[in-house]
């Protein structure tokens, strides 16, 4: 190492870092020469732990693989188990699942929208979106009994039906959020700080995205309308109308500005869900017996959903026993969190590193698993 090159640690203990993740930066001046992602601070061996826990017990463990958006874990796991067990989930349960996933998408977009306020020093965006996110969490609390780790979607359906009067509260919230989104656009997205700090920063092009495996907003901001809800619809996403917003610049600003647009689409979907949701049972047993003795037949299945950060998937293998034989998680931020940091950060400035991590949505536990 030459005298001019300095090694700096960004995270895990850093106010600009989201989660327990670290980037070792080798810098010359304030330009990053080499960046090494250092994951593992949140490695709790989720995948291995799941092999030791009953099929049903895993529902309490997996939400922890992605803290801000736990429901995708539950949904992927449940969908994979149902595929193996060849169980048809009741229609109402599927609609409720979609509702939960869309609410979670809104909550997580608001959360990361707030997150960008930290590294660029525009705290208004953080205050606004975090307080709006709390309103979504209130809905979750009424629906699932908890605010963050819902543990609500189970193999076979969901745990409980909607409480009375919740539909009304949700549609009120949707009206409120829709109005807020236009305020966000005028007040935050047109803000000078945001433009100066995000335009042309943390750029990625389509080719690199595809090479690294980046999906989600990262890919859509380069002009590719790739959304699993559209290209390979799961649940009833083929029965609802929505658009896939895209941008062409591929920079941090393009990605951030896509978020309010996606929230608007989610609001549109939720309104359709509330309209189309039939009444009926909300779960079905996936096998004989009580919760301790649920068994899933031999088999293997992969289930994926579109998370806020891209394709999120669970590969579940069963040998017919009391516990899964193997579970593998495709964390959506794996490509941008590891390869992206290594390949695309060199050449940028130190203060642009957190912008990459935030706008691409790097979520540490889903990399560590």
């Amino acid at each position: 190492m030459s005298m001019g090159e300095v090694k700096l640690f960004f995270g895990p203990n850093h106010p600009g870092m989201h989660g327990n993740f670290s980037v070792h930066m080798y810098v010359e001046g304030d330009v990053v020469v080499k960046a090494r992602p250092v994951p593992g601070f949140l490695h709790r061996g989720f995948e291995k732990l799941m092999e030791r826990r009953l099929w049903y017990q895993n529902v309490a463990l997996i939400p922890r693989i992605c803290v801000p958006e736990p429901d995708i874990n539950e949904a992927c796991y449940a969908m994979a188990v149902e595929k193996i067990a060849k169980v048809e989930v009741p229609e109402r349960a599927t609609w409720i699942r979609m509702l939960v996933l869309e609410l979670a998408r809104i909550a997580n977009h608001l959360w990361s929208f707030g997150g960008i306020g930290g590294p660029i020093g525009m705290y208004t965006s953080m205050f606004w979106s975090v307080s709006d996110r709390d309103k979504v969490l209130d809905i979750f609390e009424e629906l699932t009994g908890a605010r963050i780790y819902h543990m609500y979607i189970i193999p076979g359906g969901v745990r409980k039906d909607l409480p009375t009067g919740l539909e009304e509260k949700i549609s009120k919230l949707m009206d409120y959020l829709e109005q807020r989104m236009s305020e966000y656009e005028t007040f935050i997205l047109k803000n000078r700080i945001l433009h100066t700090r995000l335009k042309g920063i943390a750029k990625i092009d389509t080719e690199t995205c595809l090479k690294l495996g980046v999906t989600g907003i990262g890919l859509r901001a380069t002009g590719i309308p790739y959304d699993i809800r559209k290209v390979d619809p799961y649940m009833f996403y083929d029965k609802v109308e929505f658009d896939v917003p895209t941008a062409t610049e591929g920079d941090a600003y393009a990605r951030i500005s896509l978020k309010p647009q996606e929230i608007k689409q989610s609001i549109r979907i939720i309104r359709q869900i509330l309209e189309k949701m039939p009444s009926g049972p909300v779960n079905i047993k996936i096998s004989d017996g009580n919760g301790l003795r649920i068994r899933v037949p031999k088999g293997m299945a992969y289930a994926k959903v579109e998370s806020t950060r891209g394709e999120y998937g669970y590969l579940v293998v069963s040998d017919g026993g009391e516990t899964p034989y193997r579970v593998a998680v495709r964390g959506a931020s794996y490509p941008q969190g590891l390869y992206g940091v290594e390949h695309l950060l060199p050449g940028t400035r130190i203060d642009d590193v957190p912008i990459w991590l935030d706008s691409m949505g790097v979520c540490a536990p889903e990399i560590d698993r």
Partner: protein
Amino acid sequence: MAEKSFFAPLIAWKNIFEKPVTIKIPKEKREAAPRYRGFHVNNWEKCIGCGTCAKICPTDAITMVEVPDMKQEYGMKPQRPAIDYGRCSFCAMCVDICTTGSLQMTREYIFVSDNPEDFYYVPTEKGILRKEPSEIKIGWTREAENDLLDLERVVPEHLPAEERLNSFVEFVKVYSKQQAIAEAARCVECGICTDRCPEHMQIPQYIKAIWKDDLKDALKWLLKGVEEQNNFGANPLSGVCGRVCTHRCEEVCAISHRGEAIAIRWLKRYITDSIPTEMWHEIVKFNTPKKNKKIAIVGSGPAGLSAAYFLATMGYDVDIYEALNRPGGVMRYGIPRYRLPDEALDKDIAFIESLGVRIITGVAVGKDISFEELRSKYDVIFISTGLTLGRSTKIPGADHPDVVQALPLLREIRDYLRGEGPEPKIAKRVVVIGGGNVAMDIARSVARLQKMKFGQVNVIVTCLERTHEEMPADMEEIEEAIEEGVKIYPGWGPKEVIFYPNEDKIKGLKCVKCTEVFDENKRFNPKFDETEICYYDGDMIIEAIGQAPDYSYLPDEWKSKIQFVGSRILTNNIRQTQIPWLFAGGDIVNGPDIIHGVADGYWAARGIDEYLREQK
């Protein structure tokens, strides 16, 4: 640079007039949602300490702790769940699976303490905040849609009542493999059944083995029990008990609090019926060296066979003396064939015999061989002769030949069905006196014979107990008897046998209303209302009001040394009488059913072994 109005930032100003989104704790309080998953409360009146919450807990936050001064009763464990809030993930699975519904979650979520021990907490009705139960708001509860238990029993195939009346064929079919596994999957392995079973059979273990489709392991649990603890919990009469056990275990089953108990009895039968006898030896092996001691067992009923089995596994030389022509006692001659076919009994006895037990049938001790001779030939004698004499109501007219005892008639019916005896005399109209299982057995047997002979059933059962629930017979038996056309009239006491005028032929039975069966001390002391009278028509009356032991084979010399409690022999806990070499068990000591007999046999075998070791 984006187009931006100079006034755009002003929209933020509207927030100046709004309340802050945060709240000031503890001044302001925020109510949690109605189904919030907060701290637990546990109703100790309802909780049975089954530990299912601890088993489902994904984070191992729940442990079962022994509670001192806990009332000890069947169907309950002296433990209660303790929750470590350092581990709890508030998933509420414990609430969803709670067998009694005692565990609930509240809407409370703030608890502050400077003592870390406080976060390890045994929930009571008062909750972690020590509030009055009425002040606590319940959050997440279990409803039908999030119930984690499987409450409905898998019912084995049954013959319908009309069909089963036409023969003595066993009418409950054995579970299929799929059914058995589905039924076994309902078990939560709490072991409350094991505590209740007189023999302490290892029920959760063999049910789990069925669930894992490991029948060999299941059979080992049945016949060997806990091998390291002198085969504790084994039952050599598993095939019999799998059919006719009084299943006390099912009465206390944790699932029975909210649903139907696990069909423990049918599952046991599934194990023994699914493995052919030839394979039992390959699966269950005993390698105990032979001991040079001889033991005689008088009576080949459940207690005698069980004692013989356990003694044989300990290496003793065992001979069983049986007065009748076939071994099995009450199982062979008392229980009707439609409940316990001979083949099932033979299977169990064959396995016991294969361990080297000799069964000498047709030899009555006291008649064909004297008790003294036995005493001289054997080191220890175990008597288990059961209750063989029927009790009579002693009402006027009860000495008529058409007023018969249930037990001898049951024996005749079984001999007849085996082709070993003449057809028993059965009348077209029969009245049975008694409300126990023997009354049900004879009523249902007679109903079958009537249907086969006369084409229709006409059996009346009358008993002192005033309701079906009060009757000592199993509810299942009563229900099935009614299905088969037996008419049951509870709450009547027999008064007199009525005859046709000037004829020696029974016309019926005169009864008076029974107002009370037990007095305040719960002793049998019936009271009657003599003004309310009722007549039951019948050509034949069968008395099934209880049995008594017959000790005529015991020489007076020994009899005088034995202590009796009523008609029962008093023994110590290893079933040893006051004569050190004389052990006793079964109905003459404890009763009242097969499984108690098996348990007596086990403890007697342990006692005999202990006694003989001391003799060396």
